[in-house]
């Protein structure tokens, strides 16, 4: 089972008089199959924490350690950019608020592309299976611009899971969807993440979505 261990994490942004400490001495542990919602006001640092966990931001202090199932522990906050990229494509999945699908690839190809990037064999077959799992098996040949917002986010979800990641990091995954669609996407998100045994860390303003998670970390109090 994968595991995330965060120790004494501190992140400051800006410099000099404008410097702002988003969080300090933060500790966190998450096991594969668990989910955690990061909540808080705008600017409280929840997206920044998510980016620290994904190795996109380097904290000033503390450690972010990932232990994928059957793999050695990687201190993501201590390795170089190349190693962090490699870790992300092999062991993490990302879901963005604005989907960020590649417009010139079909839904199936968008998913297969991630499997290919992660170095997996038979990427198309994996992608097809994953699209089926998120209920879009019939829309594989559609290009993103012809899909609804909810469908696009489900393709993004399939992309985040196709390579069997240790964790899925989702930044406001339903923030750009209407209430009903958001509910449907959230249901698929939690169901599929649990199915593949990955951890889920999501940033959200939506209390209903946060309530679906196993735990909540509220940021903003410093």
């Amino acid at each position: 089972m994968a595991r995330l261990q965060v120790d004494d994490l501190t992140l400051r942004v800006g410099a000099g008089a404008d410097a702002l400490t988003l969080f300090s001495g933060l500790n966190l542990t998450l096991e594969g199959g668990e989910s955690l919602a990061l909540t808080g006001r705008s600017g409280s640092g929840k997206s920044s924490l998510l980016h620290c966990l994904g190795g996109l931001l380097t904290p000033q202090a503390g450690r972010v350690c990932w232990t994928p199932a059957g793999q050695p522990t990687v201190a993501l906050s201590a390795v170089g950019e190349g190693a962090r990229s490699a870790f992300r494509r092999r062991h993490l999945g990302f879901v963005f608020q604005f989907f960020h699908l590649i417009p010139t690839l079909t839904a199936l190809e968008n998913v297969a592309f991630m499997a290919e990037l992660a170095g997996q064999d038979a990427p198309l077959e994996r992608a097809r299976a994953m699209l089926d799992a998120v209920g879009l098996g019939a829309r594989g040949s559609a290009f993103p611009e012809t899909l609804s917002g909810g469908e696009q986010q489900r393709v993004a979800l399939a992309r985040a899971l196709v390579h069997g990641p240790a964790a899925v990091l989702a930044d406001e995954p339903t923030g750009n969807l209407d209430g009903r669609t958001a509910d449907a996407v959230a249901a698929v998100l939690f169901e599929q993440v649990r199915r593949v045994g990955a951890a889920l860390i999501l940033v959200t303003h939506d209390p209903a979505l946060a309530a679906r998670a196993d735990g909540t970390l509220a940021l903003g109090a410093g």
Partner: protein
Amino acid sequence: MTYLWRARRRALRREPLQSALLILSLALGVAVVVAVDLVNAASRTAMASASAQLEGFSTHRLEGPGGSLDLATYAELRRAWRQGTLLASEDRVRGFAPVLEGRLRLGDGRGLVLLGIDPFASLQNVAFSDAGQATSALAWESFLLQPGAAFLPDGFLSAEGLALGDAIPVQGRPPLTVLGTLPGDDGASAQPLAVVDLATAQEWLGVTDRLSRIDLALTPPATQSLGRRALERLFPGLLLPNKAPPVALHPALRARYPGLMVRSQAETRLALGGLASAFQLNLAAMGLLAMVVGLYLLYGALTFSVRRRLESFGRFRALGVPQGQLRSLVLREALVFASLGALLGLGLGRVLAGGLLGLVSDTLAGLYDQVAIAALPFDPVPYLKGLLLALGGAFFVAWPLAGEAARAPLLPRAGRPLAPPIRLSGAVGLGLGAALLLSFPTGYLGALAALAALLLAGAQLVAPVTGGLLRVLGRLAEPLPLGLRLPLREASRGLGRAQLALAALVVALATAVGMTIMVSSFRLTVADWLTERLDAPVLVRGAALGADRPVLEAALHAAREAGVVSGWVWRQGVEDWLEPHPVSVVLLEAEGRPAPQLRLSEPLARRLARPDAPTLSWPGRLDGAQALAPFYRAYGGGRPELEMPRALWQGPAPEGPWGLAIYGDAEVLERRLAPILPDGAEMLAQGPVKARALAIFDRTFRVTAVLQTLAGLVAGVGLLSAFAGLALDRQRQLSALRVLGAPRRFAARQLLLEAGLLASLAGLCALPLGLLAAWVLCDAVNLRAFLWTLDFHVPAGAFLQALALALGAGLLAALGPALRAALAPPAHVLEVLRAEG
């Protein structure tokens, strides 16, 4: 309006690279036009100045056979002039001036042209100044009475540090004395000119019984129409010199002196005039091309700029901003860009002209010994033209876009294309127009217009053809991994944005391919022509060669028996009329060589409008209709010629200069024949003559290559701008991929692959278009302008070079954006993604 403009200025400041590249591409276009015009104007001034020195006020010259006249003939011609019976035409001869011209060597070995004149009759533009005083009696007297008194160009004297009264050493002769100055010449001429009294010339040149020619001044001089003068001023070099109608001697004089001919001064300047005109025509055409490419890019950039903002324009309209203000905003923006580009271009053009000056000066020195340019004269017209072209062009391309902005929909419409529409009907129309211009006798300007129409038609087709090729490649690439197929898909998507830049690149590359093929065909044909004309290893020439013919023949027969000589051909030139054209006839007699045939030169055959005629009738010169062999090529310019076996000639006994082409080992021939050559005859090894002619040719077209590169550079800057825009469009996608774990090099590789693909496909499009351009240049422009055809020759490297250039330009243009994408720190990547919200 103030607020709208202020907001726009701020937005432009946020995209400094795009704005800078747009200004730069326009500036380069303007710079090339200005530089070409400045250099062309300077070279024309230099040529006019050299002509004024050599020809003065004379419009024509009367030449005897062999380039000289005896004094008795001169006396009779002078009498005829006095009686008004010199010419067949009504032209009044205002001036009649004997001239003796020859060459001396200065003390340091440099050549000097010595022009002996009769100061009472001279048509020379000589300023009789004496120590800075205007025409003085003392100067006149000295000129007439003091042997060796000479007038030399002002520039030459300053360059040599010589003053009035100084002596100029001359090899093998007493020194010349500086008596006064000649106007013009900036001191850079390869061979300076010294004007002396006829008596001094006779003494210094050792010729006492003959003249070189008689200069004539005919009135009225041919005047040019106002329109033509304006066109020449605006597009120097684009119009070829007018051909003056031929002037003939009075029939009685023609019958008595069959070898005497009246030539216009312009005609005598045309020894290599064809090449010179071709050279100037090329310069002018390339300059215009660079400007068209620059305006094309401006059009593309403005179209994107306006269409990207249509939604905001709609919002402004919804808020109540009047349509006129929106229209004015777009026009103002275009004019600001054009003004900045033009101002930068004017400065760059001046610098560029300075750089080109050396190359052009070398070319002119090769074509005309007397012409050289040392500095650019101040001429405001090219600058004004550059400015007006940029501003007028910008207004022209911005006007419809301003209308589009003013009519922007109040509610945003999805799916509106950003790229200007491709109108296949436009391409078809332009193609048909080109075909019509090529089918009818529209002259070389019509052929040039057809070339421009073909290039523009081709440019219209670049996007659809490239799109089609990308689709085919996409299908072929199905088995490849998605990471490799993605650039193909993205290239297809980016085609809309890059299409105008690609079209500009295609136009520049096609022109380069066309010019390369044309120049290569031209060179090969000229080389073949030179090989044919100069096929004998040794040529002996001299006016009196005919008199010594028996001695030479005996020596040649002996040499032939000894195996030194394989054969020879006697040539004698005759100036005559093949109505209504003055012609040079070459009479040939061969020994041990293929029998000569009656042949017309190509320009003559075409001038007679019967290039494929089987026979030629020439009453008084030929016995009935004689069979004609196919025409032969001639590229020298000047008077059209024909050649024939001497036995066919039925005209008056020829008196023209003799030549003897001898076949055998050049070195042995020179050694054995030199001792028996008559006085005044000279022996020339033909190999070096051919090499020099080809060297002049190569030098002539070197400037063209430089200008091709510059036009390519303008297109390259456009490409840089387009690919920077494409990278900007893809920033979010590539940032998302970085977050997903794509390595840094992935983004760079994607951008480079896309750019390389688009540019290579554009390069492929340029190949057939370039071939078509070459065909028009070889078979239409050259034929119509100079009455000569070229053997079509495609050099092996032309296509590869174009493809490599396209790929190189694409990769180079994408390198910056690719590096930026690869080196972007994660914080920047996150910022880009955040910006979406």
